[in-house]
């Protein structure tokens, strides 16, 4: 390699150096939607964690005090006795400076460690969440799925036969379902179905599963599982199906008025093809985003419904832990549920781009 004649040493190199390349790459990454959204999501989660960290520790009483209270009333101990007993149980120091607690927690969090539960024998929080999460996912997820499917079909049918008796009856039902809060439905099922009419034995349907049946992949266990999830799922479905029906109905009606439907009719396409290929798919678009967003709120479940049916989900667990002031557990549950919301929101955006070609074309 000889000397390059016209090159002056004080000028930057004309060919792309590593620095400018990486700068361009960085800019491209920054411009990319997924990157920006991910950074935003992480930032949101950090703020959520910090805020909840502060708030939770501002709650009156700390886990030690609550436990001391419990010992004092249950075992008739004096304050000092209870205190010494509790001090041995928990490895939590309420007098540690707030900043120190915060940096400790965040340090662990960055390594993916949610910490250890304060009140339940130092089990890792992630393990606790993993224990209660499937129950909520199962019940609320099933409820969401069923109500979504029923809502889709019924809503589309209502729009197709709009103005008929069927439409009026279904719209009235949907309004009622939409208007009544879920705990009202839960109490109605329990009190009217279970106690007044004695359609079923309440005791057999609330709680988790029969403790006598061994957990595992055997028919009895699955039957018991389904039996106990029946009432919460029925409640979720009855409470949310109305909303889906009404949205699907209005979405379908507006789709039916579109020009391309008229064109499809003019082209002589079969009624079935128009309904499924043209109306159905397009009417479902806005609902898919809503579904993705609701999936994010599945985790936070419904505290009240789980509490009424004594269902061992994440919501009921969060409520219990709030009572015990188990800081790390509350913190962990908040983090996980918020993360679910953030992720589902991102997915909803991406999903919309995938499902609706118009959005994809428009963004380019």
């Amino acid at each position, binding site marked *: 390699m000889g000397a390059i004649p016209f090159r002056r040493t004080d000028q930057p190199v004309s060919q792309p150096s590593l620095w400018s390349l990486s700068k361009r790459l960085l800019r491209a990454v920054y411009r990319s939607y997924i990157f920006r959204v991910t950074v935003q999501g992480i930032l949101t989660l950090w703020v959520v964690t910090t805020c909840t960290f502060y708030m939770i520790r501002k*709650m*009156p009483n700390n886990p030690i005090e609550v436990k001391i209270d419990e010992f004092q009333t249950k075992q008739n101990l004096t304050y000092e006795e209870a205190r010494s007993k509790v001090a041995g149980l928990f490895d939590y120091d309420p007098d540690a400076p707030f900043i120190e607690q915060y940096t400790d927690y965040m340090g662990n969090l960055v390594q993916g460690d949610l910490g250890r539960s304060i009140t339940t024998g130092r089990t890792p929080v992630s393990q606790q969440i993993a224990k209660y999460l499937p129950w909520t996912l199962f019940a609320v997820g099933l409820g969401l799925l069923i109500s979504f499917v029923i809502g889709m079909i019924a809503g589309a049918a209502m729009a197709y036969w709009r103005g008929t008796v069927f439409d009026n009856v279904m719209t009235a039902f949907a*309004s009622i379902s939409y*208007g009544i809060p879920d705990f009202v439905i839960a109490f*109605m099922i329990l009190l009217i179905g279970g106690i007044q009419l004695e359609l079923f034995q309440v005791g057999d349907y609330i709680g988790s599963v029969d403790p006598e049946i061994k957990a595992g992949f055997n028919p009895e266990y699955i039957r018991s599982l389904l039996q106990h999830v029946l009432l919460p799922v029925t409640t979720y479905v009855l409470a949310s199906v109305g909303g889906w029906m009404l949205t699907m109905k209005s979405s379908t009606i507006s789709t039916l008025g579109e020009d391309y439907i008229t064109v499809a009719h003019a082209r002589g396409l079969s009624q079935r093809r128009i309904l499924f290929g043209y109306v159905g798919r397009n009417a479902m678009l806005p609902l898919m985003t809503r579904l993705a967003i609701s999936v994010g709120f599945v985790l936070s479940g419904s505290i009240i419904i789980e509490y009424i049916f004594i269902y061992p989900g994440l919501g009921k667990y969060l409520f219990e832990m*709030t009572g015990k002031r188990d800081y790390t557990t509350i913190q962990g549950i*908040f983090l996980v549920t*918020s993360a679910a919301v953030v992720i589902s929101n991102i997915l909803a955006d991406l999903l919309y781009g995938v499902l609706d070609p118009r959005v994809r074309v428009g963004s380019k």
Partner: protein
Amino acid sequence: MGFLIAVATIPGLIIGILCGFVPLGIGLRYQQLKWGIVGLALCGLAGFSFGLIGGFIMLVLTTAVVISYAFVDREDPFTSRASIEAVNFEESQLEFLMRQMAALGRTIRQSVRALIRNKAGFLGFIGILFFVGISVFGPLFIEYDGDTHVERLQPGARTLFQKPSSEFILGLDWKGRDIFSHMVHGGQNLIITSIEAGLIATLVAVVVGAMAAMIGGVVDQILSAIANFILTIPQFPLLLVLASILSFSNRFYLAFLFAALSWPALMRAVRAQVLSLRERDYVQAAVALDLGLPHIIIREVLPNLMSYIVVNMIFSIRSAMYYIVGLVFLGLVPLEEPDWGVMIYVGRQQGAIFNSDGASMILSPVVAIALFQLSLILFTRSLEEVFNPRLRSGL
């Protein structure tokens, strides 16, 4: 308590009747005696139930209606009296005020007509009136039964719970108290707190949303970021934690807390609406005429948003009620009897769920809450018609 009062009081009745003399007097002056008397009655009723605020609002509304009858309508074009629309540049301040009142009165009359026209909406309106009426006037006729009645124990029964009978139409609760009296006395607090919460949340959402959209720039970005952030945290768990931090000596704080958590959803919608309205021709025209920001927001943008805002306010009231009852039901709010939520909570604690005699203690408030919320939802249909300018102009 917060800023709403709903107790039937004698001073309130006197204030209301005093307020009612204004529409009556104006009615006499303009030979509209019939509407003057209606105004007097309505003012008396409003003052009786909501005190000074109710009396005064009703005074303005009924006076406007009476004045509007004194002016020419489309229905009666041959009277010699002045027209609402006719602008006279030499009119005095008083005449201007009269004309504005007449315009307001006409709007009110059209709104009432729209309200009655929608059957489902009117049903909801009647339902809301029913519950508010029971909460306000019920206590005048039914005494609150707050003592334990051991003497009401039925022979052979183990608890004081009792099924509905002719003497106690909703039965007895776990202390042998009359459930019907609890229902009458217990709704007031809940309904008022929910309405307050919904009003505050809507107000914050509309102000912040309109501000973000009209000012734009950094303010918009910051406000939107805050809204998005609050939307990320699951609401009820957050409310749960916050409720245990602040022990509520006053239900009004609960309304405030709810508002602080629930404004973002509506705020984002209002912001988007204002952003799109800002580009419309008539708003651009107002900007070009330099009519000022308050005028543009209040006269050009807000009327188009009104139906949306009002409907969302009703939804907000509804979810406030859900959250408040939920918190009471989980025992996180200091229990104050009588209250529908407390009845559910105590009923569950005392085993009313598993006792067929006691079901009424939980079912009564639950059914009442369900009916009230259903009325709210139905009422929104009327409100849509009342506040939609396009539907209204057809009258």
